[in-house]
């Protein structure tokens, strides 16, 4: 049985972190959830740099990426990952407060796997987070290429 891959949550707002973690908890996912608080940390994690130089977890099953982030914003992280031949198969879901069309367009141009506007309603938000966790953490079969390198 292959090791369960973690879910990487990139979110600067502690309340959103708590709400998202609660939702994921309640969906009974076995995947570990790694939380980083800005774009720079996210890149460090993905590229095993800085404090994550020695991490021994697998690469994430999915990155839940907030759009507005300190230091390096979500779109930059997305661009970095999706333009890197080694990394571009990492599923990335934009998770954002914004319904700004330009962000949506830009994200899809950069090759985002999904773009989710955080619903105001908690139930909807819970459902969205849980669905994302279940779909990307359990149901989605990553491409074989990623298996070999992961």
């Amino acid at each position, binding site marked *: 049985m292959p090791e369960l891959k973690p879910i990487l949550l990139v979110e600067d707002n502690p*309340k959103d972190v708590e709400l998202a973690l609660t939702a994921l908890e309640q969906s009974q996912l076995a995947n570990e959830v790694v939380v980083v608080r800005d774009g720079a940390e996210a890149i460090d994690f993905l590229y095993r740099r800085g404090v994550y130089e020695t991490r021994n977890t697998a690469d994430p099953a999915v990155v839940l990426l907030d*759009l507005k982030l300190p230091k390096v914003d979500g779109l930059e992280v997305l661009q970095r990952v999706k333009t890197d031949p080694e990394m571009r198969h990492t599923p990335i879901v934009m998770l954002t407060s914004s*319904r700004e069309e330009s962000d949506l367009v830009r994200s899809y141009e950069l090759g985002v796997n999904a773009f989710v506007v*955080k619903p*105001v309603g*908690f139930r909807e938000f*819970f459902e969205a987070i849980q669905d994302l966790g279940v779909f990307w953490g359990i149901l989605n079969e990553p491409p074989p290429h990623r298996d070999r390198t992961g």
Partner: protein
Amino acid sequence: MTLETASRDLDLTACDREPIHIPGSIQPYGILLAMRPSDLVLTYASVNTAETFGLERQVVLGRTLREVLPKVARLLEPDLAQPEERGSTRFLRTLAIGTARGERVFDAIVHNGADQTILELEETPSEVATTLDTLYPTLRRFVEQLQAASSVEELCRLAAEDVRRMTGFDRVLVYEFDPEWNGNVIAEDRNDVLPSYRGLRFPASDIPSQARELYRRNRLRIIPDANYTAVPIESLSPEPLDLSDAVLRSVSPVHLEYMRNMGTMASMSISILRNGRLWGLISCHSGEPRRVPLSVRNACDFLTQIFSLQLEARERAAIAENRMRLGSVQARLLGHMAAEDVFINGLVNNPFELMELAGAQGVAIIDAERCQCLGHTPTEDQVQALFHWLSSEHPEDMFVTEVLSDHYPEAASYASVASGVLSIAISKMHPSYVIWFRPEAVQTVSWGGDPHKPVHGEVGATRLHPRNSFEIWKETVRGRSSSWNPSEIDAVKELRNTIVGIVLRRAEEMASLAEELHRSNKELEAFSYSVSHDLRAPFRHVVGYAELLKKQEGSHITDRGRRYIDTIIESAFTAGTLVDNLLSFSQMGRTALKPRLIHTQPIVDEIRQKLLLETEGRHIVWKIGDLPPIQADPFMIQLVFENLVSNAVKYTRPRDPAVIELGSYRKDDNVVFFVRDNGVGFDMAYVGKLFGVFQRLHRMEEFEGTGIGLANVRRIIERHGGKVWAEGAIDRGATFSFSLPNAIGAA
């Protein structure tokens, strides 16, 4: 025989061609010798030289001055050794020399020709000998009176008087050239011997162009006797000697005939030069032959130079005064323009100042859109026609004429109001002009003889004769306004520069406004972007934590407490939705349209599908009519239909059955879509509020909503160039319609 039909041109061109500077002879009042400057060997000599000094003719040419005339040479050699500037004539001295007829007195004058030194010895008539002492009081008196003279006319009269006093001529005229070189007699002093020419005009052909050029160069000419016998100049060279600067130069036989025709036996003329240009002449005539000694002639030349300087000073002062006056008019106009929102109104509302600027009696301000005629102008239609002519024929900055009908024959019909036109073009891109008008100034011109018949010729002969009648010939000049003077033209030119400056500045202001607008749009975009993130998040958190509280701690909370939590959740949810709606509304205004051909029928079907859940259990009768394809932004048009259809569904909630009808029709060049229902309707008194942002006509507990949907509908349709409207009545249903222009309608 007289050639009645001979034209002015024949006279002009023929006279213009006469080589008057190389006549090959001199007048018989002295001798002329030309010599090589290097060795003073005589190369030309008037044939009377030998006779005057009792020599053999053959001993003159080819010998030095010293060999031929030792006394003259001795007296003058030091002077001749000094080179003269070309074209300047120098009076050397008065000499008493022994001649074949005893000792005679001569004035020696020298000047340099092309490669000759030319010496003239003019014999001083003993009976009129004068000295500088006798001339001085007259010159002094003249200068004193000049200061006191109040007008140019008086100045001219004084000059005429004093020249006559010094010279003893019967008539002295001051003669001014007009731009066509006709001469006008502006002052005169005379006795009864010769008739008055005062106020007469002499045609340009009387003084042909090469004579005018000679007059400019050699300021004073004299012909003591119109019946003189010319003395030829002999030479060893075939080249004729240039006598442009010689005082004894023999004149054209045509000119002598002209003099005899005028009844004058002697004449003298002095050039009045202004800035090196021939401005006029002081012209002296005598009924009998008259010698005027060189000293007197020089005094007259001096007097004339003082006169022309004074004339110039006065004219400059007058111009300066006029410029100041026009400058203040211009400053007032500028002030008026600055005070108006539409600057051109500063001109329109102050027609008198505008007219004063150009000394005009009427003015029109005209472009393709409007025509303002102020004061005495042609009719508006005539001004419009003139405007079109100007736009196509005279797009240059400025057009000036005193005789508009010469350029534009249609103007002959309104010459009485607009013979003179001065116009400025303000913009070349959008033709617009300010046109000043001056009426015809009917003038009676008294010509010194009929200017149209000046020439007489002999059959078969090439020699020309000047006109022989100087009877006053009156001519009435029509279709011509008074002249626009240079200060008026300059004032108008400056007004144009000012206006162009204003137009340019306005354009710059517009550009910077557009830039500012663009910047504030950008700011607005950034603002709503951050609102969409930062304002939404707290509402989400309120809802989230309240839900968690209810779910996880619900067992410890009372029923009332749970109701409070529900209200918190609901309110925060509503607030969040409001933010979403407001942002989508702002996006509708900012997002670029991406129109393409879309089919409306499937859109409506899809919307009905989505509403199925909401309408479950309700009885709704849908009547779907013809829904043609349109050219529009698909996302936005979908929002329009979604809003209208969901409104219909919402407001028919109390109806059983609810009837909702969708359809379209063509009206003029538009496609009109409508959504009609049999719902609760609305009061037409409030129809104006229906499409406003956050305007609601129903209480929240009756029908939920944020009041943004119809505002979005209106914004989207207006951005597509269409219109929205609604009709309804309370409890009798409503019809919402929108039109889209056919230009982007179905292909």
